[in-house]
């Protein structure tokens, strides 16, 4: 009887965890350049979590882990714009608005709307993002493209480089998640 009970609890725990998906190697990149200069940062160490049962999504991005082609850009990004010593991470916590239209057990591409709080440079704002969830072999990939206005997050662009840096950053999210192990 005890064995059956333990097996049932174990099965239940496994099932509960199977509804959660995580990654620590998600990709978020942004571009905020202009026709004069290409400015692109790429971060492939993004932590993301999706709870398929509740529709909650979480992203944590360490600012210092963004990589740039040019050393000076990397320094300016961390020291002058994002102040990464003071604000080491950005995050997003939100909920999928159309959770019922996503079948996590069936391969396919599902348009997805997420509403939540985006925190960048220590400033938190409500945002709505449209993207898609691609299910393949039972694993979801989260994809989204959206823009953020740098001034909304207290990121100031000095007058000397105003022509080189866009007022809006284009953000691309691409995170392939794995089932959370029990």
């Amino acid at each position: 009887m005890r064995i059956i009970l333990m097996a049932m609890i174990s099965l239940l725990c496994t099932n509960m965890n199977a509804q959660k998906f995580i990654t620590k190697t998600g990709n978020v990149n942004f571009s905020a350049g202009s026709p004069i200069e290409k400015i692109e940062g790429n971060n492939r160490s993004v932590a993301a979590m999706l709870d398929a049962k509740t529709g909650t999504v979480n992203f944590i991005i360490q600012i210092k882990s963004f990589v740039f082609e040019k050393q000076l850009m990397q320094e300016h990004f961390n020291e002058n714009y994002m102040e990464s010593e003071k604000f080491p991470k950005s995050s997003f916590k939100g909920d999928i608005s159309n959770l019922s239209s996503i079948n996590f057990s069936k391969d396919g591409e599902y348009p997805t709307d997420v509403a939540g709080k985006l925190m960048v440079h220590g400033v938190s704002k409500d945002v709505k993002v449209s993207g898609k969830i691609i299910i393949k072999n039972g694993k979801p990939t989260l994809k989204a493209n959206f823009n953020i206005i740098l001034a909304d997050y207290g990121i100031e662009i000095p007058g000397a480089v105003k022509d080189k840096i866009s007022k809006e950053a284009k953000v691309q999210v691409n995170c392939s998640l794995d089932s959370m192990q029990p």
Partner: protein
Amino acid sequence: MSKSLKIIVAILCIGIVSAFSFWQYVNKPSKDFSNEKVDLLVTVSDILKRLDNDTSTVSQIMNKLMAVDGSIKKISKDAEYITIELGDSSTTSSIICQVDARHTHEFTNVKENDRIVIKGKVTACTFDEDFGLGNTIQMNFCSPYKK
């Protein structure tokens, strides 16, 4: 050549050299750490254990060039980039290594469970934040460690 012409030529030369130096400074590519001497060499299990037991480990390794010896838990590849997660299945804590794009060709044949020694600049140390992600060390500009 008159004296004034010499002065003009000298000013022009200085201007050209200065402009070129400035252009080089602005467009200098990100540093390649592959030939740099590491600050510390650790195993994955040792450094994660240290992080678990002593939070001062963060200040000891942040911004340092660290070489890590351990097994590949997960590897994410696309056309241009490779990201390697070092760790083992007994814990969700791990080390994330973003391979320097200039060195991706040196990792094309590695696969999950392979044991490697990789070095990179430590950019972040994070503690479990209710997601069950475990503790994480992040390294950028990673390349193979060569003694």
